[in-house]
């Protein structure tokens, strides 16, 4: 059927443009990471107290603190500590945690998979639902169902997730006793336990990101639906569903993917509240731990991971947007 053609073959310069973009992005990402690590190091150095004081606690004598400081290597000047951390990072030698009696890599290795599972499950639930809600309400724009979905998503964006999570726990864990109130799943758990454990945390997180993504999707799709080419297609007798899927979506994919990337980057570091309420051993609470115990190597590494994940997601969103957009692609 003849419709607005979406060229499938790539214009000659596409891969070159993409490679240049990716190379440029990776370069600037490395620079950003370096700057972020420097900023985190300087700012965390301004916090009152250090790892030795925090470890010995309220009842430490100055002599004990000095001895521990020496043992931990905190008595060398700050710039040398930073450079040795940076050197370790570049040569792939994971530094040793000041507090936890094990290498930073090992701690992260225990926690990062947890965060990725939570983020992955939430994504798997949230993205399809959000896309469906966004597209559906855009197609039915102005109707009752659109307004209902609009108000619903707006309300969900406004409800803080700690409220969502706490109410969820009170109803499903304390009253009905259907689901656990805290994360109890371990690697030995069965699939049933795994699903039960993850239901409440994933739901609490998903509600917030679904609402945001759905609203952005709706806006992007509505924007395209008002364009002349849609009217043209309609006049030619193309069915509404086909218009949206084949013509509107490829054009709207840029902003949608951007919205998804932003929401997902939030799932890694921003899950701190959900991690606290469900006692979930993820990487966000690990970073908070690192701040309160002044464990600089661990703090730095967490900051690097969040920053890298964010940059990576934004890069992916840009690449997808370019690939989906014929105009950008042939540039």
């Amino acid at each position: 059927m003849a419709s607005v053609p979406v060229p499938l073959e790539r214009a000659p310069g596409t891969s070159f443009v993409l490679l240049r973009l990716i190379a440029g992005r990776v370069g600037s990402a490395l620079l950003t990471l370096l700057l972020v690590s420097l900023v985190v190091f300087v700012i965390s150095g301004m916090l009152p107290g250090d790892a030795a004081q925090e470890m010995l606690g309220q009842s430490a004598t100055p002599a004990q603190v000095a001895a521990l400081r020496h043992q931990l290597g905190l008595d060398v000047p700050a710039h040398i500590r930073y450079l040795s951390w940076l050197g370790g990072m570049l040569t792939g030698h994971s530094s040793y945690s000041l507090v936890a009696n094990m290498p930073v890599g090992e701690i992260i290795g225990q926690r990062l998979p947890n965060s990725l599972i939570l983020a992955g499950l939430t994504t798997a639930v949230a993205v399809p639902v959000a896309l469906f809600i966004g597209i559906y309400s855009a197609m039915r724009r102005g109707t009752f169902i659109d307004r209902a979905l609009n108000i619903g998503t707006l309300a969900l964006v406004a409800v803080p997730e700690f409220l969502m999570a706490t109410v969820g726990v009170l109803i499903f864990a304390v009253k009905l006793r259907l689901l656990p109130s805290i994360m109890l799943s371990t690697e030995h758990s069965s699939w049933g336990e795994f699903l039960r454990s993850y239901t409440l945390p994933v739901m609490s997180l998903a509600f917030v990101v679904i609402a945001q993504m759905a609203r952005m999707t709706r806006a992007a799709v509505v924007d395209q639906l008002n364009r002349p080419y849609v009217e043209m297609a309609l006049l030619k007798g193309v069915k509404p569903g086909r218009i949206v899927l084949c013509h509107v979506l490829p054009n709207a994919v840029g902003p949608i993917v951007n919205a998804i990337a932003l929401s997902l980057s939030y799932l890694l570091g921003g899950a701190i509240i959900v991690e606290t309420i469900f006692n979930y051993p993820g990487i966000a609470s690990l970073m908070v731990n690192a701040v309160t115990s002044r464990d600089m190597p661990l703090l730095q590494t967490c900051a690097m991971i969040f920053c890298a994940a964010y940059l990576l997601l934004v890069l992916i969103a840009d690449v997808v947007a370019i690939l989906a957009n014929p105009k950008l692609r042939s540039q």
Partner: protein
Amino acid sequence: MSAGGLLLPRSLSAQPKPRYGGRIRVASISSSTADTLDPAKAALSTDYVRVNMFYNGLTRYDRNLAAQPELAETMESSDRQTWRIKLRKGVAFHDGKPLTSSDVVYSLLRHKDPATASKIKTIADQFVEIRGDGPDEVVIRLAGPNADLPLILAQAQFLIVRNGERNFHTVNGTGPYKLAEFTPGVRTVGVRNANYWKHGRPYLDEIELIGIPDEVSRVNALLSGDVHFINAVSPLSTKRVQAAGGYEILSTPSGLYTDFIMQQKELPTGNPHFVLAIKYLLDRGLIKRALFRDFGFIANDQPIPPFHPYYRSDLPQRPHDPDRAKWHLAQAGLTGVRLPMYCSPAAEGSVDMASVIQELGSQIGLRLAVNRMPSDGYWSTHWMKHPLTFGNNNPRPTADLMFSLFYKSDSVWNESKWNNPTFDRLLLEARGEADEHRRKQLYGEMQELVSDYCGVAIPVFINLLDGYDRRVKGVYPIPIGGLMGYMLADNVWWDG
């Protein structure tokens, strides 16, 4: 002469016959990457419970805060300076090796090495010499007489580890449970030690310890049946726990207090009339009722709680007397003075306490400002560093430790920097005093001195509140801390 109470037989409890088997999950207030399997580094309630799962001490606390024999069968001394400890026979570590005097010597002496980063190095510094006398006897020589040694050795940090142990990546103790899993900041799992030296113990097959820092989540986890024992229940949550059915609050009287510190080395807070004005200003009943829902005891500006064996009961209770406070303020020439108070959620209840003091102060012409500081860094940057701050002191096992750590004039944590030579002299005298009656009298005099002249005001002693599932049996309070003085692993059974 032997140490007080040490040789008494273990009292038989009135509880029904324990059952075997089952597993429980315990949630404590804190858990972080700083979690440790090294008793010397144990710092918080979670650590104390964890190390008590896997290790034993030479002595332990009973419900009256007296020392009971544990790995030490007897502890004797004629001059309270040189102590002879006879070790229990037939005790084995988890790897099967028998307990010998070398393990005890190593475990006690390692606290003196700064590289151990022990929390109680200052206490261990009084050990002048520790040596084994054959495999079953240990001799400890102290720098000066100390009748409290059996109580001191019952602290969690003094639990006995295997000779030469340094890494603490795993556990080799003599305790009731063996380590099955340990992930710092996540969970600790112990499984029943079938070769435990205490006949018939422990009762549970498995015990899991986790940390839930958020109070609401902790209570929810208890009420939804996901955990069976929690500590640090807020007084406000007690009604919720009791109303739920099937759950109980364990209220442990303790020597925990939050105190108002008035620096004595500077003016105007160092003026004795100012100190008394504040002490008469405190409405202790209101603080106990409003802040702690009556889970506590009214205090009298000195750190020995009413249930303590050395508590002096004939000391008159200082009343809430605004007129007298006003008079003292006028005597000090400080009517209308403006002063900032530094409080923080780090010192339990201090923010509310500061508001109460501010309100009461405004009625007698004292204009105090409440400066609320974040928990993070409060102890290192604010505590004792301004003229008016709040402190929060955990119960210590002996009156001597409490007074030596927080009231002796040359102590680092002499919070108000008060200096009373009579007090210092009495403290040293009491430490080596053999006669119990005389000792109690000396501690009584010290309580009076602190109450009248020291720059700290102590309104109430705060009870420690735990919540637990009624199917957990064998529960009773041990006033050194929550979770049965951190020793629940050794004591409870599951009746599910």
